[in-house]
């Protein structure tokens, strides 16, 4: 299985195995390059980001452990984080997490989210419970690295409305997956 192979390669990379690093790059770089291209939207920036991402992977391969998600999603998260950091630095947006969050939702039970528990559902099933445009906004935020402002423009709603959409959608997804 490809995940086992990538796990094994990451283990070898953490022990400075350059052949394993080359093989890891061969197997995984097309996906990570696609992430950079999609989020950064610029080929030379994406190439530069990909370099930084693999330098980081070489240096931090020892952080991957069986407690993490699958190795491919772990690598994808490194790539997405780097690409999003670059796009946020290039196009700064307003800070948000120190402000009040409007999370009011009479249907939700606050206690429900208090405990990390096992999940019986996949995200895809829960996404179908969201209204179409909200599910679409969640997915585009993730895949394209869009900011709230960009999403608000795309969906032609005020910024605060978009924030409320996404935040409530996140809570609904969480509640759904714990059901």
């Amino acid at each position, binding site marked *: 299985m490809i995940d086992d192979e990538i796990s094994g390669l990451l283990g070898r990379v953490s022990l400075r195995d350059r052949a394993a690093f080359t093989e890891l790059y061969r197997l995984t770089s097309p996906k990570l390059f696609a992430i950079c291209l999609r989020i950064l939207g610029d080929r030379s920036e994406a190439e530069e980001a990909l370099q930084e991402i693999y330098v980081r992977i070489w240096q931090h391969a020892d952080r991957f452990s069986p407690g993490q998600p699958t190795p491919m999603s772990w690598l*994808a998260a490194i790539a997405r984080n780097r690409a999003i950091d670059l796009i946020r630095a290039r196009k700064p947006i307003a800070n948000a997490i120190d402000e009040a969050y409007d999370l009011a939702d009479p249907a939700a039970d606050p206690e429900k989210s208090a405990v990390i528990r096992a999940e019986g559902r996949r995200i895809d099933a829960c996404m179908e419970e969201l209204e179409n445009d909200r599910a679409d906004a969640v997915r585009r935020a993730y895949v394209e690295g869009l900011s709230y402002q960009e999403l608000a423009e795309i969906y032609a709603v005020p910024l605060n409305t978009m924030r409320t959409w996404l935040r409530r959608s996140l809570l609904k997804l969480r509640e759904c997956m714990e059901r």
Partner: protein
Amino acid sequence: MTASTPDKGDFRRDEVIAGEYVLGVLSADDRRKVEARLASDRHFAAMVTRWQNNLSSFDEAYDPVVPPARTFAAIERRLFETASSPTAVPVRAGLWQSLALWRGLALASLAAVAIMGASMAGLFAPPSGGRPLVAEMTGKGISVDLVARFDRDSGHLRVTPVATRQAEQKSLELWLINGDNPAVSLGVLPQTGEGEIIIAPAMRAKFSRGSVLAVSIEPLGGSPTGSATGPIIALGKARDL
């Protein structure tokens, strides 16, 4: 967002912030705040990890694109040709930096063993031919400290776990690393007490000052692949005793 442990009423907000971080909609400043909290709040870190797991199925939307060959060449230059540049950080230093960064990281299922800080004090004693080599492999705040002592003449490598609070059903496997060469397995340490491994004659010449010994957690009996598959829990450089 506060740095302190939230009460129950904040959990929904924390879930949303964790989800927003993984979606990527936060500003650069907010992302740094989230990352600072990730390092100190294990429960919050678990929320972020869970969102990463949940949302990773969206990764299917990225259709692979093979990068140009020059990109990997540039990566190799950055990683492996920096030694001659006085301003560059050597690769080995990068490794130690990354190990130091392990401190404070909370990995949900391996928190007890995966947090690592390398203690490298006093590693370079003057050389003295024929004397045993010793490597102290320590990790701050983790479950195992090990002292490895290698007798060149007899080929005996003795590994003493100074403290073992290790989970059962796993084996500790010892690895030898010379420079940027691949790690070579030296064998699996006995489950308890002092471990001694006799190094095959062909391997003995590979031990020298500066060799790095590392211990990884492997399935019971050792790595199934011949390469380390689990987290590295201890690491140290050999010096003359």
